[in-house]
């Protein structure tokens, strides 16, 4: 077990079936903080609150509504949503092989790695090599957590990456954002070309790091060194008896312990 998968199944097309696991390829660099009460540093909990009287609404009183117009909702139950969800499936079904250069990066959403599962190593390696040699990527569909995704399967440095793609109707048009067609002088074009050429480098992402994250973590460590962290009180300790049989058994056992 190297990394735990978040999904497992098979890549399939024509007569090929490659068992794989999907693992995450990204560890978000965001520093997360907890929200604490400044009186006793207890962790705050989120509750749903009625805007009408401020009372806390319990989960079993919450329903889902689609807003048709202001203050007008169509109610939708979990069962109804389930009935239109794609069927859970164990396959990543390759529909086409495409040239990745044709894909505008604006379509790329979230990257994962595909890892060969037991028995799939050879077929996996074959797909990696052939896709790499022919410079093609697989365009596939698959269902993860009740949503059907369009994905690209990419061969990179001996491994397969899977990137979920946005559907085309999620992409906003840039119409109206680009300027009109002014005539550009050859001199202006030359100057810009020279500028750009002087700045050309090979892409090396390791040159750049999330400096804000580094600075926040340095500050956290420095503060932790300077003074002890604040301490939260224990979890809610609701009194209340344990399971009745257990409490009785404990009483019986305790009687024996104490009688010695």
């Amino acid at each position: 077990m190297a990394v735990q998968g978040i999904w497992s199944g098979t890549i399939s097309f024509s007569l090929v079936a490659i068992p794989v696991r999907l693992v995450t390829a990204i560890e978000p660099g965001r520093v997360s903080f907890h929200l604490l009460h400044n009186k006793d540093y207890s962790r705050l909990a989120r509750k749903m609150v009625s805007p009408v009287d401020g009372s806390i609404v319990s989960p079993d009183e919450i329903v889902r509504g689609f807003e048709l117009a202001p203050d007008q909702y169509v109610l939708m139950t979990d069962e109804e949503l389930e009935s239109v969800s794609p069927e859970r499936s164990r396959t990543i079904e390759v529909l086409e092989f495409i040239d990745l250069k044709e894909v505008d990066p604006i379509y790329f959403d979230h990257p994962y790695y595909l890892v060969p599962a037991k028995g799939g190593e050879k077929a996996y390696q074959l797909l990696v090599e052939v896709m790499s040699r022919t410079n093609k990527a697989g365009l596939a569909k698959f269902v993860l957590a009740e949503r059907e995704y369009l994905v690209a399967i990419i061969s990179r440095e001996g491994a397969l990456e899977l990137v979920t793609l946005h559907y085309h109707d999620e992409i906003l048009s840039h119409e109206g954002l680009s300027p009109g067609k002014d005539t550009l002088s050859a001199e202006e074009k030359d100057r810009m070309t020279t500028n750009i050429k002087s700045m050309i480098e090979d892409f090396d992402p390791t040159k750049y790091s999330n400096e804000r994250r580094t600075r926040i973590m340095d500050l956290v460590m420095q503060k932790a060194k300077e003074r002890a962290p604040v301490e939260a009180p224990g979890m809610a300790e609701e009194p209340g008896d344990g399971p009745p049989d257990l409490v009785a058994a404990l009483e019986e056992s305790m009687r024996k312990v104490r009688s010695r």
Partner: protein
Amino acid sequence: MSRTFVDISGKRLPLSNLEKDLYPSHGFTKAQILEYYSRIAPFMLPHLKDRAMTFTRYPEGVEQGSFFEKRCPSHRPSWVRTAMVGHGDSEPLAYCLVNDLETLLWAENLAALELHAPLARAGTPETPDSLVFDLDPGDGAGMAEAVRVALILRDLLSNMALESWVKSSGKKGLHVFIPLNRAEATFEDTKRFSKAVAESMQKHYPDLVTAKMAKQYRTAKIFINWSQNDATKTMISVYSLRGRAQPFVSFPLPWQELERLAGQAENLQVTPEEAVRRAESTGDLFHEVLVKEQKLPHL
């Protein structure tokens, strides 16, 4: 920075600052820490296997503060294995798995003196392998009281046909484990069980025991921290060093030793040298915690 390399199982591991004294008031260098962990590894590694480890790192030594590290450092060597674990609605993190000697020594080279493990393995994060009672002495109480409570607990559990094992925390307290190893009880079960036991102990030994977390109830008493039986909590691993002034180890203790030493219980602290000597002569006294199958009754 001084640097040296060791090769383990064909993997090359750079070690740095070997002469640095990480326990300055006592004198225990990084080289000695690495030696301790490599000699205790055969006994310790089975307890760490496939657990999403949290490190407490002391890069400048135990007197200079520490930090918890849950996320496996991103500059790890490619052969360090990780597991993605998330709890509730929190974002999953890649935790280090310390399954082999090279990873253990890599972690120690990062001055991860304390190794903390969850009670469940990464593949089955909701079903703990064991239930734990963390016996934590409040101000004015000490190891002697913790030993008394541990012995009562052992007898109480034994009457319910549950065998238990005990280890020193390496700090002030003791940890009593009930092995389960049946992939059956959930943390909800172990928490209900341990809470009921702690409350029964508090009821019958009110001057000795409290089951309440709040500091004001803990003076001169042993707090039985049942809430450690939780998927999000970790316990100091058996055989781990602790980040105190003097290097002590969380070490498994035979019950007879607790009975014998009950009066002078400060002697229960185990140094790294003693830990290696004892483990090599008796074997892993916590082995049963890994394999013994037991079922919690009356839930």
